[in-house]
């Protein structure tokens, strides 16, 4: 039996009086993308930094491919790479210089380092920008050079700490595609994110973290069905019709309907879990009933539960907005 890529038991980290990680148990099978989902300050980055040998745990154990992150730190370091929340490359150096520098530190000879750098820059579409300082790169290019720097030696485990925070949608999609290719090549990826959407797109399993603890764990499907399939957002033409629209929706959906601060907006969870019917079917019924009642609807949408709603469901309080 092969060792899990990551196995932690009761992992704890304190910073002064603040317990950033309060007993985390994780098991990440090799060859998968595992998502750590949680708001800012939940302790995701601290978990990653302990696993990447950057921080010493104050309690519990953590192993990467069966090697202890404290006692066998060097063995762990030779198998992992980290792409941090902020670009983990030297912004004063050019793309080529960064990659050659790191390749040399990994033991490549000068010609090997040069070849490897050129090869990676080409694969990440950065050949034209190779001679420019990284601080002059766009956000998406920075992410790419950062990931390129992480796979100079193809790692067995790659930590991606909020890889798409602050990126435009196109660059985000590029990063997602890269992650899929990296995993297909056999690298295990531990991804931290604040976006359920991102975890859903990429991760095979997700651990939801809050206040330094795992509050839910499972496949994206399991997590979503545990909190309801989605949320219906309705915008009415007439604010005066809102009370009657609320009654109609409550009757169809069987849940409480929330009135937004916008006088024409209504929001309700589509609780598909309890009944045989899917969320989409519920939504179409709700729309039909509103029409029958003569209520004019300008906008009607069924969305995935947001991270905020996941948190509301899991903790009975709203998540911290990003």
């Amino acid at each position, binding site marked *: 039996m092969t060792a899990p890529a990551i196995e932690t038991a009761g992992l704890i980290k304190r910073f002064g009086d603040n317990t950033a990680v309060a007993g985390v148990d994780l098991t990440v099978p090799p060859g998968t993308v595992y998502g750590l989902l949680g708001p800012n300050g939940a302790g995701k980055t601290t978990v990653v930094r302990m696993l990447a040998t950057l921080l010493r745990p104050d309690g519990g154990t953590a192993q990467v491919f069966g090697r202890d992150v404290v006692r066998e730190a060097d063995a762990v370091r030779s198998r992992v790479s980290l792409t941090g929340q902020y670009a983990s490359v030297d912004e004063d150096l050019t793309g080529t210089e960064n990659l050659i*520098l790191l390749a040399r530190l990994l033991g490549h000879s000068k010609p090997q380092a040069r070849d490897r750098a050129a090869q990676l820059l080409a694969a990440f579409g950065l050949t034209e920008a190779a001679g420019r300082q990284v601080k002059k790169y766009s956000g998406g290019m920075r992410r790419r050079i950062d990931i390129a720097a992480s796979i100079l030696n193809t790692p067995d485990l790659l930590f991606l700490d909020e890889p798409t925070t602050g990126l435009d949608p196109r660059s985000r999609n590029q990063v997602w595609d890269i992650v899929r290719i990296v995993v297909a090549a056999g690298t295990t990826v531990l991804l931290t994110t604040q976006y359920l959407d991102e975890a859903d797109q990429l991760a095979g399993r997700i651990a939801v973290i809050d206040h330094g603890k795992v509050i839910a764990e499972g496949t994206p499907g399991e997590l979503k069905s545990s909190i309801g399939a989605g949320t219906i957002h309705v915008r009415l033409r007439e604010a005066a019709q809102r009370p009657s629209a609320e009654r109609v929706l409550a009757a169809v959906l069987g849940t409480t309907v929330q009135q937004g601060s916008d006088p024409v907006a209504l929001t309700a969870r589509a609780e598909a879990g309890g009944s045989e019917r899917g969320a989409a079917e519920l939504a179409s019924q709700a729309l039909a009933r509103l029409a029958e009642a003569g209520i004019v609807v300008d906008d009607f949408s069924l969305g995935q539960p947001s991270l905020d709603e996941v948190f509301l469901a899991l903790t009975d309080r709203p998540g911290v907005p990003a």
Partner: protein
Amino acid sequence: MSTDTAETVSAYAPSSETLGAVLARADRPKRPSAWAASLTFGWRAILKIKHVPEQLFDVTAFPIIMTLMFTYLFGGALAGSTGEYLQFFLPGIMVTSVVMITMYTGVGLNTDIEKGVFDRFRTLPVWRPAALVGMIFGDVLRYILAATTIMVVGLILGFRPEGGFLGVVGGMALLVVFSFAFSWIWTMFGLFLRSEKSVMGASMLVLFPLTFLSNVFVDPGTMPGWLQAFVKINPVTHLVSAIRSIMAGSPDMAEIMWTFVASAVLIAVFGTLTMRLYNRK
């Protein structure tokens, strides 16, 4: 130019063939030696100088000003003429300037370490102190540049060392060795103090007494006893005496030994403290 960049970005689509090819698992190269890793980090420091050459301002302009200022300020009063004073004073001001410049090692580390790139360095399976040793190697180049600048200014102003070319080079070499060792004090401050400003403040507090309460500017013979006691144990005093003797062509072995011992102690104590802080950061 900016539209070019935008087009490059939008044109990029990760391809599973090319990316898959670079991800193919090859044999990992052997981990570099401590020396090779340190030199590679030294190369990083040189690249940074190449990209921001203005940072050499403080190792050229500052020493020139120090030399001119004190030579003309004290020369006439202390030695009768600036030419006379320079024979005594130049090795000392060279030490003062270079030792003062070492504090930029701490300031630089303090700002550098906050950047994400150090996270990557610290997750590499290389000899741990290499990142810092390499950084100081880069600074050593700056020390050499500063020492050379002062020597050139000194020679122009009329400094005539008896020891000739070899004496001058030997004296500068000893200064560089000591400055390398001395830099570890600042790496320690750079790691435990929170801001660049506090590193500057702390280093002034150390540097002013250490350089001024020495034999750099005047003969300690006229100082009160308690001050002479400090001047005598001050490693800068021994360094200055050693360099004066080397440049004068009659090396004082005892003073040179003292300097080497001081350097070894500085590295042992502050190098160890620095690495402790570095591993915990």
